[in-house]
Structure formats: structure tokens, C-alpha cells
């Protein structure tokens, strides 16, 4: 059974508590799983404080003075993890977003960019699609597995290489979250291995 995904909405242009978007998200994902922050600093704080949870973030681009911009929040999240899907929702014309920011969004895997005037059903279906992908992503599954292990197990050296480097599960987790080379290559190898095992019928999925 999958652990539930938290939907973190960081947006100051929604009707508090009762916005149809929030209502629909709660219906689909459960009352407890949808969190709404109007203040981007607080929203970011929540995300960074709960990296062990599966999360999808709906993020506004513009915030009041003194609060981080949406793009900055996105950057701060990406600094810690690549495993949180972020959907940006803006009331501005898209062309107001700076090119370098757009490039950053593309290259750091922003899930989608939507207008605040889009149908909320469209946004909800984007969230559903992100949630589905989150369940199916190798890295996310790997993350989930590692975070389920006990603390000692995670801190223990898990592997020693010939040149005496050691890796703990936590090291691997960090590399996966930050999309480091080890993490990325690891994902690819697991997929290859899975295909290999399944085609040779040496193992069955019994998990």
C-alpha cells in the first residue's frame, strides 16, 4: 500500500479554505492531505521540514513583499530534493517570467506551468497525473524504501568500494534527492535490472 501523497498549495490568490480547487483536491486526496499556505515562506518551511513525505506542491509565482517569490521557493526546494513535483500556477502573463527562470524550471523538472484562470479540474488532473508519476518513479520508490528503514540501518555503511569509499543508505538517499550522478545512475541500473530479471523470469513481483 502506498503512503498517501501530501498536496501542498502555496498560493495567495485562492479563496481561503473554500476555493473550489482546494475543495476538489480534498475530495480527491483526502481532507488531511491537502495543506494551504498563503505565505510562501511558511509554505517552503513546511516542504523542507517534511522531505520524507511524498509531496506535490502547487505554487504561485507572485507573493507579497517580504515573502519569497514562487521561483525562489522552487529553487530552494530543488536545492534539497528533486523528488517533489512542483506545479506553478500564476496570474501573470507567462511572458513575464524571466527566460533564465524558465530555463531553470525546464531543466529542474517543473511539472507544469498553468494559468490561475485555467479550469480547476485541469489543475486537479495535473496533480493526479503527478501523483501517479510519483508512485511510479524509481527514484521516488527508492526514496520511500530507504526512508522506511530504521535510523541505524540508514546510517550504517552499506557498501565499501575498492578504493575504500563507503556509502550509507542516507548518502544514497541524498544523491537521489539532489539528482546526483550516483542517484541517477542507480535509477537506471535498477530499471535495467528489473527488466532483465523479469524477462528471464528469475523472479516474480510479490511485494
Amino acid at each position: 500500500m502506498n503512503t498517501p501523497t501530501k498536496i501542498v498549495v502555496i498560493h495567495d490568490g485562492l479563496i481561503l479554505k473554500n476555493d473550489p480547487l482546494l475543495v476538489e483536491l480534498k475530495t480527491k486526496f483526502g481532507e488531511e492531505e491537502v495543506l494551504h499556505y498563503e505565505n510562501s515562506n511558511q509554505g517552503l518551511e513546511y516542504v523542507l521540514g517534511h522531505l520524507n513525505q511524498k509531496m506535490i506542491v502547487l505554487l504561485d509565482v507572485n507573493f507579497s513583499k517580504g515573502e519569497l517569490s514562487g521561483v525562489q521557493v522552487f529553487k530552494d526546494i530543488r536545492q534539497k530534493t528533486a523528488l517533489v513535483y512542483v506545479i506553478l500556477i500564476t496570474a501573470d502573463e507567462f511572458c513575464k517570467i524571466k527566460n533564465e527562470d524558465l530555463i531553470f524550471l525546464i531543466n529542474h523538472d517543473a511539472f507544469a506551468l498553468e494559468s490561475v484562470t485555467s479550469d480547476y479540474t485541469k489543475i486537479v488532473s495535473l496533480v493526479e497525473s503527478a501523483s501517479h508519476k510519483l508512485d511510479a518513479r524509481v527514484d521516488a520508490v527508492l526514496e520511500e524504501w530507504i526512508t522506511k528503514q530504521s535510523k541505524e540501518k540508514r546510517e550504517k555503511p552499506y557498501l565499501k568500494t575498492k578504493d575504500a569509499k563507503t556509502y550509507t543508505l542516507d548518502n544514497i538517499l541524498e544523491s537521489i534527492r539532489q539528482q546526483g550522478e550516483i542517484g541517477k545512475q542507480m535509477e537506471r541500473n535498477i530499471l535495467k535490472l528489473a527488466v532483465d530479471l523479469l524477462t528471464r523470469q528469475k523472479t516474480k513481483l510479490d511485494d
Partner: protein
Amino acid sequence: MLLLQKVLKITLKKLEQNKQVLNWRFDVNTFRLLGRELITDRITAVFELVKNCYDANSTNVLVEFQNVSEANAESRIIISDNGIGMSFEDIRDKWMVVGTNNKRVNLFSDAPFNRKFVGEKGIGRFAVDKLGERLLIRTKQLGTDKWLKVNINWDEYEAKSDVSKSTKQLSLFTEVDNNYEWESNASKTEQGTQIIISKVSETWAEKDLEWLYRELSKLVSPFYPVKPPFDIHLKSNEFDAYKNKPVKPEPIKYYSHHAEIGFNAETNKQETLRFDKMLGKIVIEEIEAKSFGLIKMKMFYFNESAKRHYNKIYKNDDTRIDGIKIYRDGVIATPFAENAVKTEKRRDILGIDKRRWRGTFDKVGTREIIGILDITQANNPQIIDATNRQDFLNTKEYNDLKDFIIEQIDVWGDVKMYERESKRSDVEKKLQKAGKEVKNFATAIAKIENDLLKEKPELKGVFDIINNQIDELNTVISESISEQKKFQIEVTRKENIYLSLMSLQDYASNISHAIRTSLGKIKRMAEFFKINFPNPKQDVLFKLYAVLIYDEMTTLLKVTDFMLSYASSDIDFEDFSVKEMIEDLLLNTYEQTFKSEKIKTVVEIKDDFVVNANKKFFEDIFQNLIANSIKALQKTKDKTIKCTGYLDENNFTLYFSDNGVGVNAGDENWIFGLYNTRTAEQGGAGIGLYIVEKRIEALKGSVELVENELKPTGATFKIKLPFNKQ
């Protein structure tokens, strides 16, 4: 467990062997969005594709338009070059991948060309996307015996991404297969690339080709020969003027002044411009070479009458006078190798215009000067492209170069000022001279009168008439002189107003943000009705939404009223005293309201300050502050609103206070945001302070919440309005 360890081991080993693996994932919409930003129009699109030809070591490029003047199944845009061509891997790994410009390994093309790359990496696909829906690439490298043909169909991408929308799945761009085939029996000596675009998206008129021609002509420096050559031809089967027209740099005409600086390589001296006030003209001086190396620059300045003439000839097309362009070894250098059709979209990399906004109007801007700066790889190796290719690397040498350019431009500022002053003093001098002559004349007449009247007293009447006329003439001239002075003041003031109007564009975009936010809310609620009504389980929400939609509409109306205030005729600027306006507002206009609310007012504006601005805008600021105070004062016993103000060297500072409930700690900045309100029950929509801040920002001022002046509770806003010193 063991298996996972094994995987990790293999992983580490693989990493050793292969450090570069590409892994792309992206949203098609975002990709398209980026394309739209990078390629703003089709002229830019062609321009970018031609730059790619240059990078491929071509010596000849043919840009061909077939049947493009009207929507046509046979319409084609074909760009052919004789460059080095692409291999299958090039297309797969370079052409089809989104580049961010910082991954380019080589900066120069192959010998013997050694061209500095000017094309932006990974922009070709965006450019083609802008021009048409279908693309056929035909390409061949030297020594191979086959042409490679790749078909890329944008409309299919589009279709796929549409399908992906309906199935609620995001498709990845790279998932679309492209057909390719080999065309054999080619001569091994052939090489080149052909970009054949069909299903052309927009029609091209002769004017568009003219425009394209002009932009392409800027690619190569008019004064520095490119070796080996890079020749562009423009061909159209519909417009006679472009049957097979070689693209040549356009001669620069109609300027009022021009100057040219070079260098002496033997003595290592650089020439520089200086305006000599005594001579009233620009002189060239020699200085020691600067850190960035020796450069050549030609400048063409358009003074006011030259610009008028120019605009008349070119029908107000001011994209032609386009500031300073830097050419490296004869070819336009990044980041200037961009062609933004909208002048305001062009990046002001040298900071030429920024300088004007800060400073006075005597500075010369990019629309008054055409400059061609030639640098070379050999002479100026320290001017290096930044990895993002948006600018040059921020080296000391580049900064020195920027400063040097600005110094040269400022010399034209001196010319501008000199011309204006001499024009001004010309009129004044003439008037003063006329005044003096009249006086001399009067003295002469008086003398004649004196001598003559003794002999012929009967002439007295005649002299009286002459004397009257002299008096009248004197008055007229004095009046003219003072009129002339007044006019000068008027001109200066108009320039001030221009400065404070700059942010109106920001304004419009702010308002559109507000409206979209509101519309988004309303739309989502309406959508909810559409999907769910009727459903007794949702009745609570239906009722709530009905009320909210109504409220939101009311808010929206307020916002549109605010917006319309810009469209109304009373946008005119007028002189008015801020002191009088505030006193009038607080002591007269609101007198009745304050009486009924039992609010005491204290108004102490120490200095007077006359501004030339839109009075309504100013009143808006205070009306919103007053409305807020009234709300905040509801539960206070002895209600007070206080407004004080004074003038110092640079600003007019105002404090606006009440002794109401005050603002929660932590909300100091938040309160200025749109729709941010803590008084929703009292009908607050969160627009008032937003308007206050935007209005003040438009006047280049600032507003902030400071410690409350009135105790124990209350709010104090500090407003600072800067004025332009002349």
C-alpha cells in the same frame, strides 16, 4: 539486499566509464513557452537560422521564399548554405536537444574559418517552429556519399500534446518519432544544409522581406571585411525587388553629425572623442591603449532636426536607429546578435538608456545614435562571451570597454546640450539685441527731437507718435524675453513629467494580475456550479459561492474603475500645491464625514510643495488612507487622524496617522498586497493600500508603515515623494 548492493557497485563503475549521460524530461507547454520568448517574431527566427549557417562555416547562404504572399499549400521558406553539414549524430544530439547555451565546448568553428560562434545553441528548433509546421532537413558532410533527410512535423507534436491533454497525461517531447532517410548517389565533394520549411504559418508581404533584409544586413559589419566571406542572398518568386538580391549593409544616411575613432598599433595609442566647447565641435585625441585593447568605432548622431527628417523619410520607423552594436572580426557579436523587433524588448546591455532614466535629458540614448564598434579576436581577447551568452563575461576589461563606450556617447550628449543652449541663447540674444537697438534708437530720436524741436516746434506731434511707438516696442520686447524664459521653464518641466510617467507600463501589468486573480476565483466557482449543480450535499458551498461571486464581482468593478482612471480624460497633468490639496481634502471634503464619525483632524503641513502631476492620482492616495483610518477607528474612543509634512533637500515627506486598532505585527508589508485585508467583515476588499502603494510608486515615491505616532494604538504611514532637481 545483496542485489541492491550489486546495483550500487555497478553504478559506481559505470560512472567511472561514462561521465556524460543526457537525461531530459520536460513539459511541452513550458518548452513552447520558452520558444515564444526566445523567438519573438519570424524575422528573428530567420535571423537565427542564418546565424547557424555562419557557424557552420558557410560562405554562401540563400534565403528563399516561395509562394508566401498568401496562404498556400505550396508555400516554402528554404534556407540553404554550403557549410559543413550535419551528421546523423549531430541532428540527434544537438539539433533535437534543448540547449541552455552553457554546454558548448568549442567557441570557434573549424579551421581555416575559425569563426567565433554567433548562433545561440539549441535555438534552431524554436526558430523553425515559429516559421512553419513542417520541416525537412537535407544535410551532407564533405566526404560522405549520401544526403541525410529528416522530416520533423511540428503539427504532429502539437497533435500529440493535444492528445496528451485529453488523456490527462503529459507527453514528453522526445517521444515523437521523426522519419529519416538517406538520399544516395551524391558527389563526395558536396556539402551543406538545407532547411526546408513548408506549411508556412504566416503570410509574408514585401514589407516583411524588406524588414528581414534590413535586419540581415546588420549581421556583418559595414566597415570590416569578413574573411572568408559570408554572403547572403534573398530570393523570392513573388517580389521583383527580391528576385535574387545580395544582402549588403545599408548605408547610414540623414545623420547630423558623425565621428570615427581608430588606433595606432605601433605606438599602442587609442583615439577618443572629446567635445571642445570653445570650438563648438568634437575633436579626436590620442590616449594610452585601454585594458580591453585597441578598437575602432564609428558613430552617427541624429540631432532633433535630423531625427525629424529621418522619421519623415522612414515613416517613424525608429527601429533603424538602434544604438551601439559590437562586431567581432566583422560579424555581429553576442549578445548583440539578437534582433528584437520591439525596441523595448531589446536588452540594454551597455546600460545606455538606464543612464538616461536616472539622469537628465541631456544624455544621448540608443534611439539617437548608430554606432559600429569593431573588435577583433587578436586585439581584444579579453572580451569574452558569458556562458549564458546573454552578455559578455564581467571582466575588468569588459567593464572598461563599457565605460569607454559610455564616455564616447556622453560626448554626443555634450553636443546635444551645446546645440540646445546655443539655440536657446540665439533666440534670447536676438531679443536682447533688439531691445538694445530700440534703446539706442530711442536715444537717437531724443537727441534729434531736442535739436529739431528748437527750430521747428510744429513737429512735436510727430515725435509724440514716434515716442509712443518706441515705448510699445520696448514693452513687446521685454514681454517676449520673459515669455521665452517661461517657455524654457516649461520645457524643463515637461521633461520631469516624462520621468515620472515611466512606470505606467508596470501599472498595466499589475492591474492585469489583479483582474486575472479575481477572474480565476470567479471562474473556478462557476465551474464548480457547472459540474456539481444540483446536489443537495453541496448546498452549503453553492450558497457560499453565490455570495463570494457577487463580492468578487464588486471587487473586480473597483479594480476596473481604478484602471479606467488612467483612460479618463482627466489624466492631464496640472500644477497644484500638495499642502492645499491635503488641507482641502481633510478639512473641507471630509468635514461632514469626520463630524458624523466624531473624528478629530490635525493637519500640519510645514512647507508647501507644488507638483506637476495628475491631481486625481494624489487624491486617490489620501482618500484610500482616510477610508482605511475610518475603518480602523470604529472602536476607538477619541478618534484622531493626523497628517504632517515637510520638505527637505530631496523629498517631500508626509506622515499620515490614526489612533485606531493598528496593524498586526508581521503584517507590515503584507497589507500592501492586493486582496490582502483583515477587515473583510467591514467590506474591506484589500484594494485600498494596494492603490496607495501603486500610485506612490508611479510618482517614484515610497510608502511604508512605521511605528505608530499616536499612542497607545494606531497606524502611521510614511510617504516619501522625491522631486527632480534640475
